[in-house]
């Protein structure tokens, strides 16, 4: 094995022979795109080496607390992960993809006693991490390119989220920026969070409490909460902070325009110049996109007309009050929304830090310390309360460094154990003998297949929307139809879906498929896309991605373009196999590339027999079969 890695790293072996797979003798130039290695995102802020020791100490403490739990509940911890299973899990769960053969080799061959911690740090400081975390938040925050209708453009917000992950912005600051954002999305992309629930002020509060506090108050929007203690009045008091948050300019408010609907005016003027023109399509879109702006209006919230409880009357104005604890009083220098944001993201808010600590634990282990993780109540108990308390405390002490928290979690022995090999009933406390066995997410499968097929796919970032402001921003009172037509031209050329297609077609498509990491594709994807088939969310509701199987998925793995693409000349795995000097090395390379382990002797025998019978096409059959195993799909 050593010999193979060495040969590949040194790049000594150059195409010793022709590799069949049914290709003609003089194969055409590969159709598989290759990335340059440049990633437009900029440098990732690396994890701090100075806090590495502390992270290790906390991880050890957590393991001690978990050990006590195992003893108390007579749980036997799972086996520790071998190096090869560890490297696979680390790449998948931190970077969102399987490791390349070189990466496996480098890790397995290293004799550094700290190599696991080093790999965790390296991955947490990589572009892969940004991509993987973005996928997580895209599911939680229901990110859509055009959230409410086609006129809203949200991509600057999505770029901003990636940037916040890249610079490791403190989590409380990140949330605070979203909650207090004002302006148009291209001027202040954090406004995208508020835009997502445009015109749904009451639901927006329900959503943010679920996402940022792990608590569900939605039932109380219409009546006192039947299962938790929230009353409808409390819901309204909480929502009243948010009720003046507007996302659109209207004729009445004279905010962005003073003379009636700007689109009607511009259409009329356009017709005067060109009687044929309709002013529909992109013309209307770029004008309407300017109507979306987050701003604050004084707007009292009243109890509903059918309010039925004794503690208030229908149509009565409610006062502002958070659902628990206390908050400042809004005034001339602090809008209600700023007060709410300060309350929500405060270190003393008992659920804000706890929620994200529990979420990050769940993300790593497949189960929260508190379950259900998104319905935390006063009486909710963590399966190991001391662990959750410690994580929460660490998070607060690090000023909400969520990446540092993940570093601690990944550093525990518990996370570095094999997954539990039987079903876990989440209605019962789980004491974390190891992570829950999970199928890869849709994004992990897609990004892993891409890793096997395409060189440096992380180079294919989504065309950026930097510069959109200078093009699209308009004064709605003054803009002339000619101004708008100029905007339409530039918008079409640079920022439309058509422009994006043009770029990706030339750069990174294969048989009509855009080959880019899942984080660099449009959102939501059409329902027939590979990612949707494997469970990517449609972005309608909070965290609705899935990991369950279906017959359609199996058909796609059997026959889909992406499976067959990697059997083509020019794919990463094809070239890797080509470079290996002997059948034995080739089989090692295939198994390590796909399953991150060498073949067992019985498997080697089967594979060799196949290759003897089918010649070089046999390698293709082995690759295809391995990608179709459950071992490939599940994270052990």
């Amino acid at each position, binding site marked *: 094995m050593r010999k193979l890695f060495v040969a590949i790293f040194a790049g000594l072996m150059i195409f010793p022979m022709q590799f069949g797979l049914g290709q003609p003798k003089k194969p055409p130039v590969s159709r598989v795109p290759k990335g340059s290695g440049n990633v437009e995102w900029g440098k990732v802020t690396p994890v701090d080496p100075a806090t590495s020791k502390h992270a290790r100490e906390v991880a050890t403490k957590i393991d001690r607390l978990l050990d006590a739990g195992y003893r108390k509940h007579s749980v036997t911890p799972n086996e520790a992960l071998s190096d090869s299973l560890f490297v696979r899990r680390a790449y998948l769960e931190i970077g969102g993809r399987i490791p390349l053969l070189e990466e496996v080799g480098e890790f397995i061959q290293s004799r550094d006693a700290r190599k696991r911690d080093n790999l965790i740090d390296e991955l947490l400081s990589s572009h892969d991490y940004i991509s993987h975390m973005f996928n997580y938040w895209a599911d939680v925050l229901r990110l859509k390119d055009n959230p409410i209708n086609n006129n809203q453009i949200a991509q600057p917000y999505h770029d901003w989220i990636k940037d916040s992950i890249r610079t490791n912005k403190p989590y409380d600051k990140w949330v605070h920026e979203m909650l207090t954002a004002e302006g148009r999305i291209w001027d202040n992309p954090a406004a995208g969070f508020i835009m997502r629930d445009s015109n749904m002020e009451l639901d927006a509060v329900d959503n943010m409490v679920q996402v940022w506090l792990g608590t569900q108050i939605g039932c109380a929007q219409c009546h006192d909460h039947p299962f938790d203690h929230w009353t409808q009045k409390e819901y309204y008091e909480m929502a009243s902070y948010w009720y003046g948050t507007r996302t659109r300019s209207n004729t009445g408010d004279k905010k962005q325009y003073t003379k009636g609907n700007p689109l009607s005016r511009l259409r009329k003027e356009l017709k005067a110049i060109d009687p044929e023109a309709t002013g529909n399509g992109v013309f209307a879109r770029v004008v309407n996109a300017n109507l979306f702006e987050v701003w604050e209006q004084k707007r009292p919230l009243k109890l509903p007309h059918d309010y039925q409880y004794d503690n208030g009357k229908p149509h009565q104005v409610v006062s502002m009050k958070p659902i628990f604890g206390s908050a400042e009083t809004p005034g001339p220098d602090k809008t209600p929304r700023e007060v709410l944001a300060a309350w929500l993201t405060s270190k003393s808010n008992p659920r804000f830090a706890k929620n994200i600590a529990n979420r990050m634990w769940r993300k790593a282990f497949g189960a929260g310390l508190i*379950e259900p993780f998104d319905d935390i109540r006063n009486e909710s108990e963590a399966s190991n309360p001391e662990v959750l308390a410690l994580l929460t405390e660490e998070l607060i002490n690090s000023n909400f460094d969520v990446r540092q928290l993940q570093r601690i979690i990944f550093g525990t022995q518990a996370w570095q154990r094999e997954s539990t090999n039987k079903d876990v009933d989440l209605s019962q406390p789980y004491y974390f003998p190891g992570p829950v066995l999970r*199928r890869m997410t849709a994004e992990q499968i897609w990004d892993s297949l891409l890793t096997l097929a395409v060189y440096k796919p992380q180079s294919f970032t989504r065309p950026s929307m930097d510069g959109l402001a200078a093009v699209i921003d308009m004064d709605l009172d003054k803009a002339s139809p000619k101004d708008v037509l100029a905007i339409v031209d530039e918008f079409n050329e640079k920022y439309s879906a058509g422009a994006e297609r043009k770029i990706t077609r030339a750069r990174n498509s294969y048989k009509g498929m855009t080959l880019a990491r899942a984080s660099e594709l449009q959102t939501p994807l059409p329902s027939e896309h590979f990612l949707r088939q494997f469970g990517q969310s449609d972005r309608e509701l909070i965290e*609705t991605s899935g990991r369950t199987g279906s017959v359609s998925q199996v*058909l*796609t793995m059997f026959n889909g373009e992406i499976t067959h693409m990697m059997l083509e000349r020019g794919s990463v795995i094809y070239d890797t196999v080509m470079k290996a000097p002997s059948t034995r090395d080739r089989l090692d390379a295939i198994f390590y590339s796909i399953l991150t382990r060498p073949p067992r002797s019985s498997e080697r025998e089967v594979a060799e027999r196949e290759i003897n019978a089918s010649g070089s096409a046999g390698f293709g059959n082995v690759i295809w079969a391995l990608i179709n*195993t459950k071992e490939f799909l599940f994270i052990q």
Partner: protein
Amino acid sequence: MRNTCSKLDDVSRRNFLESLAKTAWGVSILPLSESLFTSSAQAASTLQAAQKAEHVVYLFMNGAMSHIDTFDPKPGEESGGETKAIQTSVSGLKIGEHLPKLAAKMDQLTIIRSMTTETGAHEQGQYLMRTSYKMIGSIRHPFMGAWLTHFEGKKNKDLPGSVLVGTGNRHPAQGYLSAAVAPAPVGNPATGLQNTKSPKYLDEKNFEKRRRLISQFESNFKKKYTNTEVAAYSDYYSEAVRLLKTPDLEAFDISKEEASVKEAYGANRIGQGCLLARRLIEKGVRFVEIEQGGWDNHNDIYDTFGERAGQLDTAIATLMDDLKQRGLLSKTLIVLGTEFGRTPKINQNAGRDHHPGCFSTMIAGAGIAGGRIIGKTDKIGKSVEDGHCYPQDLNATIAYGLGLPIEKEIFSPSGRPFKVAHEGTPLKSLFG
């Protein structure tokens, strides 16, 4: 995952629900109904074999379809909005103007105006409609298509027992039942089931060889990991292989239809979905669920409502005609469901909000006596006045029509007893 009731056993959960219905909801939103809490023991569980439906086309209106603008119009009331009522083919019965073709077929269909449910949250409401059970963290319940395959077996052994067209990830699918009765999801009816053609070089012999390789390479993993989801993939593999070998696979390909037929159904998701459903049912698929989105009309409801409802109207009417012509309507139940209704009050954004208090569904086809409207809402469409029908009652009705054993207790792998339609009572009067 929500486990609202998971920590309660079944008896205390029942009590819990009862007490809730008497307090929180009972006051004005959900008056206590007999049907939810009384035993369905008095209900006969099966129809005569001759009347039994063999198939279901279930149309799910995702987002919560406004009852007032479709099957329960309130002309002359402020709550009625812009929607006018039109005369149907049955004298004295009127429905919303956006459904003229269904109005003309009123004599063949039954409308239930007294639907009422427990939640105004989409995900939970959809789950309840599809399974008759509340959504909880510890178990996933089966939807009706899986029950049907479970009890009756497949009609065509090579095709899936049920097919989902355009439904989301959180569809409960087969729940805790075996993956062998799992539905096959189709994202887009126009593209059908994808990736059913192997590349040219991959002949059948070669394909078999590759399959053998898979099982040899994964035997260790399968032995070690006995988790349900791992085992489920084995079922999906077998099903995929059966599918690839049957000529009936063509049923998934609507491009085989004449352009005029496609046009009659409508060049949109719901229309093409109904056409796909007819092709599948013809070849023996038992249950097809088609989802149409876009009904969550919080804003500017009348901007798009007519168009969407029009597509639905055309799709169902064409499906009924087509099935009838092929002798299949008498064997197929057509059901239209949604998770809840929308508020009588039109909000400041010219939309309607969530309203679990009442909503409408429609049922037609096999054994269903047409020309009827079941239940009644008040003057403005806010509360049910008569004949409360809960999601579990609607499901019991479908199960009854299919001849499924409604009272039989089925035990989940964790040993908990469940029934096809929970404690629902079938509306037997709907049948002929």
